[in-house]
């Protein structure tokens, strides 16, 4: 890492510390330290969930942008988050039809992974023109797929006895639940850490792969293997994030772009710095929904990230000179 990358990394680490401190102090009554061990544990759980989700989505965004050579690629825009969400709600519905109970808090992990990878496969296959990934087609296919998966989620909700009201906040909008089991956070956190470490390890190969195929091959990058790894890695990271917090948008877009502007495009530092920034953003968003009291309970995090991330996406879209 060069000096600039190191400085940015240090600044982002400091931002994470500040965000964690803010969230630790965000209480139902404004800024106040936890009253007891119970509150400390609860806030710690949400902080770890938020860091994991943010890091996973940001790292997934970096992988997708490298895999598809498209700066606008990110899990939500390409339909991966809603694909994973659809997988989860289908598994909830199947559980309901077999047991009669609606299981909301720790649904199985596999359907989320299948949903995310399925969505990525569709986007990858249909987003090509003459055998090459076309940036505009890719985004359009992703948006349409996201709408289809969103409609699928609403359809499954329609079949449930409470019309899916209970699952709407988490699986449609995106929210962190106080019910998230530590075992799940540990599983997703472990997988995320591993994926980020692998992403950093293959940083040079990712740098080369971001150029043309010929250039990547000329420096000995095994493109097929790398793409398969990025495909599975980005899908798994998105599935993990969705399992904890549902579909949260735009973090995978905003974090890598901000880091690229600050530290440059080298993937080794981009991967780690983006993960730190993504984690900090979600922790700050969670502090925001705790502190913003509108008298109607906590706002879903996904609302806040969409309100802030949507305009950022439009700005990038305009910057990339792509018309929607």
């Amino acid at each position, binding site marked *: 890492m060069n000096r600039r990358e190191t400085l940015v990394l240090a600044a982002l680490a400091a931002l994470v510390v500040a965000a964690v*401190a803010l969230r630790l102090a965000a209480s139902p009554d404004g*800024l106040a330290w936890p*009253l*007891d061990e119970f509150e400390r544990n*609860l806030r710690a759980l949400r902080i770890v969930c938020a860091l994991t989700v943010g890091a996973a989505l940001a790292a997934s965004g970096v992988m997708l942008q490298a895999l598809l050579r498209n700066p606008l690629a990110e899990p939500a825009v390409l339909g991966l988050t809603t694909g994973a969400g659809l997988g989860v709600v289908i598994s909830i519905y199947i559980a309901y039809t077999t047991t009669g109970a609606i299981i*909301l808090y720790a649904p199985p992990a596999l359907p989320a992974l299948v949903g995310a990878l399925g969505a990525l496969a569709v986007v990858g296959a249909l987003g090509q023109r003459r055998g090459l990934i076309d940036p505009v087609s890719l985004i359009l296919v992703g948006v349409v797929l996201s709408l289809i998966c969103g409609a699928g989620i609403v359809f499954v909700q329609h079949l449930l006895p409470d019309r899916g009201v209970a699952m709407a906040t988490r699986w449609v909008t995106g929210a962190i639940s*106080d019910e998230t089991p530590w075992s799940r956070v540990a599983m997703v956190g472990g997988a995320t850490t591993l994926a980020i470490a692998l992403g950093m390890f293959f940083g040079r190969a990712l740098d080369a792969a971001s150029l043309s195929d010929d250039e990547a091959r000329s420096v000995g990058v095994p493109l097929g293997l790398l793409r398969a790894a990025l495909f599975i890695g980005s899908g798994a990271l998105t599935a993990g994030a969705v399992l904890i917090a549902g579909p949260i948008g735009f973090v995978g877009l905003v974090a890598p772009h901000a880091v690229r502007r600050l530290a440059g495009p080298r993937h080794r530092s981009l991967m780690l710095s983006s993960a730190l920034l993504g984690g900090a953003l979600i922790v700050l968003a969670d502090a925001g929904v705790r502190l913003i009291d509108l008298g109607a*309970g906590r706002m879903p995090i996904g609302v806040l990230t969409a309100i802030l991330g949507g305009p950022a996406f439009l700005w990038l879209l305009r910057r990339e000179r792509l018309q929607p």
Partner: protein
Amino acid sequence: MRRILLAALVALPTFLMLAGCKDQAPSPAAQPGETRIVALSPAIALIVRDLGLEGRIVGRHAFDLALDKSIPVVGDQSGVDYESLARAQPTHILLDWGSRELPPRLATLAAERSWALRDYTMLSLADIRETTLAIAEDLDDDNARARAAALAQSMDDAWSAQPGFRERCGRCLILFGADSTGAAGPGSFHAQLIESLGGASAVAEGAPFVTLDAEDVRRLDPDSILIFAPGADPARAADLLGPLAHAQLRAVEAGRFAVIAHTHGLTPSTAMIDVARETSAAVLAWPPIAPPPSGTLTP
């Protein structure tokens, strides 16, 4: 310079935030014998209020419309805000969670902290009556018991056949809100309410909540239409009918439609006593259904 600015941007909010933090004293703990209720359901909040125990409610549901807004929100249908719940220091947590999985942490926490956790069923009029009596028993309050008995008597009176209702109501289509497509089906407490007053639900088959379009409604050909739209202006009932106003329905042409605007008209609770009275008054103001001319066949 940039680095200094960046560091300042991170350090300043952190410092301000840490400096602004208060070391809070815990809320006063529940005194021995004191009842502190969390009503984690808008319907149960109404019942507790009508039992005269509103002053003991320390936590409410996010969608609650009846309680004082200063009472903290401790959760909604999608989950519990455990930090707010713990700060409320309840002795009783009352909820109707339905067929959903009860939040795992809630059961554990209730056991650890000796909170009485009561999950009631609120799907039918009989459930509402039973729950009203059960809550008074569970809270072990003599005044509440007396009020519950009086409320049960009011329910029996309000949810009974009213003279002239059947002749004016007939097969009634029960719609929700200004959107005319959501309707009450068999087994819903709204259908039960109409049946208890002497009428019948026009939707005889399907789920308790069904979705209809204007063509479905024409085929149903109801004798009357009631729109349960909390807070709506009853004088604008025709506007709320939407496309049904022009669907050449017998009910509309005969003026047998009305809006039930009770604030809690969609909440299965003690509010259904007043809702029944409002419904009865609206229906009894209609002209009786004319018998079909002799020699014609009715469907």
